[in-house]
């Protein structure tokens, strides 16, 4: 590429500029600016501001390996600068339109200050323009580095950014093992110190370079020559090690992170259930929270020592809660499971909303506490040992997740899994080969409900009280987003999805306000770009990329199946 594709440069630059503008004008930049990543140097808000410029530069430079440096750099510079133009205009606008805040509430003086690096508007704007142009240039310049250096370099940078963004994780771990003074040296209040960042970057770079230059080739070779037995043995070792790691995890993480993991685990449990419904059987359920609520309320009512409760032992109440959720799933499922696709989605949404309204209603207040919820939910115990701390619940949830994973895995590979897959692919034909549609769907629905009920039972006990506002539609959407982002139908994907969508926001409380916005963007982007999810199941991957990858016959791609079968998500 020796000439600049001006159209593309302008297009990319302006798109990035609009992204930056929107992030600024809706208050994201300002809110995220309170999060230090590298103390005194970089905040999350600035990252949000600068990343598009960098990416713009990176993307306009293109993928062509043989390119002249000057046009490449020029294109990057221009794209970066263009990405700054909309916000610079915003700064200018805010300069003379003093009442802008009456209209756009987040265009605050603080935002302008962030955008202009605390200087007065003209020099600040120019600085911003310069910085973003420079970043665009850098983004483009990345392409000029030889690939073997480039990759480790990018990886090390990413690692440093991720490390500093989620510095809570290493901080809490370090707190477990190191003295406080030492910890403070690396982690001030939030984020990490500049020196620490440099050290971490250097270390990461060294590791990545070593990996790139010495390791990669050899490992790839090994990978190729490995025997199936050895692979099986390796995966067994991996499983044993990870299980051992899971067992000692609370010791490593400390109480706060353990609680986060327990929270993630609750969602893993629910997502495993919804994954059976949506991923295996292809039934979109938007009212999934209803079963979570049933499990939580039934268990809470049985175990609570308060006015409404019966004071039953948790170990008796929990299975009853699960069974209640399953029965509820069946009772609801029977009428709705004859509906198809999107109608089912809407009806389940309606049921979820009905449950949400009912749990807080005056109608059921005498029974389930209405708005005031249920207090003093019972805790599980073994003899005189009672579950209290997040650590205890971690093990309970871990056991629940393991059980659910096992059940989901065995069912998927068994007859039921095959029936679900057939129903998902073509209901009519599935019925015509002798599969009882309602029974098969009901089974998925009931098992999914059971997992959610279990999650609810543990949730109520862990939190110690049950209030209606824990059962909003949002939970359903959250769980759905988990399985979509993780990979529909994929068991490891579900776990990964829960960590990304529940664990990360838990670590970044700043996200909370923008959580749903980010979910919305994620759902759209995932569907457009990577519908199979982050960690897709083998089946799903071949479904969504069958046409691109494996083509034993060219004719097949054009065969009658192409139009006919629509695998549901």
């Amino acid at each position, binding site marked *: 590429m020796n000439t600049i594709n001006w159209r593309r440069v302008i297009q990319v630059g302006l798109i990035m500029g609009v992204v930056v503008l*929107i992030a600024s*004008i*809706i*208050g*994201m930049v300002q809110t995220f600016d309170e999060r230090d990543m590298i103390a005194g140097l970089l905040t999350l808000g600035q990252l949000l501001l600068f990343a598009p410029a960098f990416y713009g530069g990176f993307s306009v430079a293109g993928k062509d390996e043989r390119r002249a440096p000057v046009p490449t750099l020029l294109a990057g510079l221009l794209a970066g600068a263009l990405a700054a133009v909309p916000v610079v205009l915003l700064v200018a606008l805010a300069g003379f339109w003093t009442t802008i805040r*009456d*209209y*756009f*509430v*987040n265009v605050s003086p603080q935002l302008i200050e962030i955008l202009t690096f605390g200087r007065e508007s003209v020099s600040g704007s120019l600085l911003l323009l310069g910085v973003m142009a420079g970043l665009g240039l850098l983004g483009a310049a990345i392409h000029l580095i030889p690939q073997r250096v480039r990759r480790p370099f990018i990886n090390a940078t990413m690692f440093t950014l991720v490390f500093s963004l989620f510095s809570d994780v290493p901080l809490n771990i370090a707190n477990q093992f190191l003295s406080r003074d030492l910890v403070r040296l690396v982690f001030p209040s939030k984020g990490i110190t500049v020196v620490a960042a440099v050290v971490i970057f250097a270390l990461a770079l060294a590791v990545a370079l070593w990996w790139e230059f010495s390791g990669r080739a050899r490992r790839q070779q090994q990978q190729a020559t490995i025997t199936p037995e050895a692979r099986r043995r390796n995966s067994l070792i991996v499983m044993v090690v990870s299980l051992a790691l899971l067992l000692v995890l609370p010791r490593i993480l400390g109480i706060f992170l353990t609680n986060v993991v327990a929270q993630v685990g609750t969602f893993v449990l629910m997502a495993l259930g919804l994954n059976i419904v949506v991923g295996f059987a*292809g039934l*979109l359920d938007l009212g999934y929270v209803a079963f979570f609520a049933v499990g939580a309320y039934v268990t809470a009512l049985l175990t609570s020592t308060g006015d409404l409760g019966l004071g039953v032992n948790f170990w008796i109440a929990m299975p009853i809660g699960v069974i209640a959720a399953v029965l509820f799933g069946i*009772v609801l499922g*029977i*009428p*709705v499971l*004859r*509906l*198809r*696709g*999107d*109608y089912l*989605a*809407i*009806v389940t*949404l*309606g*049921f979820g*909303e*009905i449950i949400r*309204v*009912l749990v*807080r*209603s*005056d*109608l059921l*207040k005498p029974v389930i506490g209405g708005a005031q919820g249920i207090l003093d939910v019972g805790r599980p115990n073994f003899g005189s040992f009672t579950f209290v701390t997040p650590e205890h619940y971690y093990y309970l949830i871990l056991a629940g997740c393991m059980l659910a994973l096992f059940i989901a895995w065995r069912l998927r590979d068994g007859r039921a899994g095959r029936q679900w897959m057939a129903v998902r692919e073509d209901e009519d034909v599935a019925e015509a080969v002798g599969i009882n549609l*309602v029974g098969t769907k009901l089974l998925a629905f009931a098992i999914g409900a059971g997992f959610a009920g279990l999650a609810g039972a543990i949730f109520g006990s862990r939190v110690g009280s049950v209030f209606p506002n824990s059962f909003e539609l949002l939970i359903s*959407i959250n769980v*759905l987003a988990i399985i*979509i982002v993780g990979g529909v139908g994929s068991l490891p994907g579900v776990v990964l999805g829960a960590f990304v969508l529940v664990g990360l926001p838990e670590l970044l409380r700043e996200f909370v306000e*923008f959580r*749903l*916005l980010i*979910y*919305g*963007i*994620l*759902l*759209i982007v995932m*569907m*457009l770009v990577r*519908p199979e999810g982050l960690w897709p199941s083998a089946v799903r991957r071949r479904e969504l990329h069958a046409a691109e990858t494996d083509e034993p016959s060219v004719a097949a791609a054009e065969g009658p199946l192409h139009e006919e079968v*629509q*695998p*549901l*998500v």
Partner: protein
Amino acid sequence: MTLSQRLRDIDWIDVWLWVFRVVIILGVVIGITRKLFFGAGTTYDSSDWIDFFISGLSQGGLYALIALGYTMVYGVLFMINFAHGEFFMSGAMASTYLIASTLAASGFINEQPILYLVLVTVAAVLTSMGVSLLTERIAYRPLRRAPRLVPLITAIGASFFWQYIFRGLFGSAVKAFPVPTILEGRVNVFGLDFLKVRLIVIIVSILALIGLYLFVQKTKTGKSIRAVAEDKDVAALMGIDVDRAIATTFAIGAMMAGIAAVLWGLVFKQVIFSMGFVPGIKAFTAAVLGGIGSIPGAALGGFFLGVIEAVGPPLILEGLGAPGAHQLKDVTAFLLLVLVLIFRPQGIIGERLAEKKA
């Protein structure tokens, strides 16, 4: 045939569905009887019932206008445009914050009330259309050949996206929608006492519905939309620009949502970023009630739902002795949706959906 054989031949699902039907019908009958003949709960006089009814009717008009967007898009693409409620919200928010509040502050609102309403409506309609076209272009069009649930999921994503973009732009507070003083108060028509704004809503929504129906039936654009709804491939062969027709469908739906947004402001006098979600679901319910894909169906479903929501709680729920009856009106609405989908999926006046569509 032995007893056990007979038992095996019984479809237990049908049995359960019958039980379900009977329970619901019994509930409704008992509730109404107790209310009307045994005076359960508060006693209402006839003017109260008329108030319930009119209020429900005008609310239904709003639902109907929003429902049109759902029904038209469903008719053409067979997808539930979950984000349609946000198109409605965007029109209301943008027109209130950017136009209405400025015009109200300058006193223009009462000097030129008609012009004020026109300007606000134009702003709302344009915003709704813009948001809708942007959504269609980015989140739906690339997925037109994808499995059906894929666009539904992007639609859910788009719904949250717009909601929180507008929250970010204008904040999370309630904003007053300025109403010209001439529209305040009541008016007497045919011996019935209407709030002026309620009457306006009912009239405007009926006019808009008729106008839209004629548009779709009579104009060239309307015909091309119907052709695309019948069969996209054939329509394309006939020289119809399918993308354009679909975009037009979205734009028309959004236009109705924009009109609904202004009417909404006149009635409830306030806007907030979260205002689109619940009306969106309700309007979708209305569209399904009437028979999704049909314009008169959406209208009928909207009015029906509005009236049921207003009259149902005092008439049926209070009759059954439920405390806090109005809190449960969403339950009535969604139960109605569930019942219709289970027992009459084609809706009140809808045609039976062909196999490939259902």
